[in-house]
């Protein structure tokens, strides 16, 4: 027991170091960011030379792109997950799809930005737009949501399905009326997690949604998300206080997403 104390201490210190860093980051940004937060900050436009005022259009652009991403990813991810769990047989087909999903999950965000630029902005002719940004983001979060949906579906006991078949239902009817509804809380959790991930994205959006500070009304409009705005403020070295406000707002949203996903997860009785 006595010889053990050093390694065990190191382990404890590591854990504390991580907590300390997190607290330092959050508290520092909070202290500098909270004073900026006001209704004016949230709901007015940036004005003038130093981008004073508010960040309203960036908040809207962030929501616009992430909601679009959520819309696009859901059918594809759920459809794909249904295929992998219900329709496909173990074999090379499944392996290829999983491999593809894993690779997709590992692609650097800047490469997604280049891809989104080449495909959506140029080739599809969408220009810098919420649509191009949303589509790019949806590809980025596809692996996350698909994996979460898979796990949600696989967690459903086979007995549910057998009961449904016993009543004479077809495969699709079973999926539609038994499997998916039962799995939906966890699927929604997965979607929320995916959207949370899309929320923090920057590199992919600079080249697809653009950097124009206008208010996005239509999917064809360009826009600057909060993350891109923070990047601009930080690297141009202007309005550091607004930058802190933006950073803090981002942290709050991420925290909210985290809690929301957790609440949903608990509600449906899952571990993660």
């Amino acid at each position, binding site marked *: 027991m006595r010889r053990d104390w050093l390694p065990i201490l190191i382990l404890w210190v590591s854990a504390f170091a991580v907590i300390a860093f997190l607290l330092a980051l959050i508290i520092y940004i909070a202290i500098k960011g909270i004073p900026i937060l006001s209704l004016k900050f949230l709901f007015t436009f940036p004005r003038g030379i130093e981008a004073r005022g508010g960040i309203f259009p960036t908040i809207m652009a962030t929501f616009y792109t992430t909601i679009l991403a959520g819309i696009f990813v859901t059918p594809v991810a759920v459809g*794909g997950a249904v295929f992998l769990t219900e*329709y496909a047989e173990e074999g090379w087909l499944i392996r*290829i799809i999983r491999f593809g999903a894993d690779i997709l999950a*590992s692609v650097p965000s800047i*490469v997604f930005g280049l891809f989104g630029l080449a495909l959506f902005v140029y080739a599809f002719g969408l220009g810098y737009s919420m649509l191009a940004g949303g589509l790019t983001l949806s590809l980025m979060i596809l692996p996350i949501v698909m994996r979460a949906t898979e796990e949600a579906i696989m967690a459903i006991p086979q007995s549910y399905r057998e009961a449904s078949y016993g009543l004479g239902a077809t495969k699709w009817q079973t999926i539609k009326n038994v499997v998916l509804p039962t799995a939906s809380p966890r699927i929604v959790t997965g979607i929320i997690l995916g959207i949370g991930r899309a929320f923090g994205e920057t*590199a992919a959006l600079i080249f697809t949604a653009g950097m124009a500070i206008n208010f996005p009304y239509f999917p064809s409009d360009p826009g600057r998300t909060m993350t891109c705005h923070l990047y601009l403020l930080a690297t141009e070295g202007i309005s550091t206080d607004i930058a802190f406000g933006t950073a803090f707002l981002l942290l709050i949203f991420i925290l909210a997403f985290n809690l929301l996903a957790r609440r949903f997860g608990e509600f449906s009785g899952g571990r993660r």
Partner: protein
Amino acid sequence: MKKEKFLYGLFLFAAFIAVISILLIFLFVGIRGFPIISKVGLLNFIFGMDWTPTEGRFGAFPLIVGSLLVTLGALVIGGPLGVSVAIFLAEIAPDSMRRIVRPAVELLAGIPSVVYGFFGIVVIVPIIRKLVGGSGFGFLTGSVVLAVMILPTITTLSEDAIRAVPKKYTVGSLGLGATKWQTIRHVVLPVAAQGIISAIILGIGRAIGETMAVLMVLGNAPIIPTSLSDPMTTMTSVIALDMSYASGDHQVALFALGLILFLFSTSLVAIVRIYQMRGKVK
């Protein structure tokens, strides 16, 4: 019956979108980037030391090495730390601590990279400046920030691997009179090693792909750093910085860098796969 076939095809298509996307990414990025390779020569591009795109010189070696170096720096700091926290969570932590540390790690994972970069600029850069001199933007700063960013990946996956070690091993070891740490070191870790290594490899992938945070704190100098305080750059930073104004050959070169990044990350996934399969045969 027809309907079932149709649905099968529909869902198959949905599942295949992931695969199609990968191929499209490879094609679009690769096709746009390839011309520079044929123009400059593959060896010149990868091993050339002079990156001055406005003069038409595209030696990407400092960029490639930069990505690798800052990843290495992040691993040196974040690897041991991440695994330690994983061990802590899986084996040592009382429930109260677990309820704090695990959400903390998840939270760290969710923080956007710009926020890390911003925090790096306002807090870490001045500290590093005092510690090792220079401007504060450089190798050490990048490594520190990146280490924190890959820590959640390493910790979460390592924790899974450690938890997967069958309880009977630990119980058996303790039953023979070994201490907690001895059990961890000689029983749990070796068994979990494969999973931990996979976690680290995935951490590497995350580090190489990181863009915003490193762009904001590395100083963006296209050189190979010779000290902790030297500014440097990565492939990702260069693409992000130059893309907004690059045209012609320059833009093609950036897509070529994107292709290299894509190949890097794909290889890592393949390596992890092969590594895990080898382990399974065992």
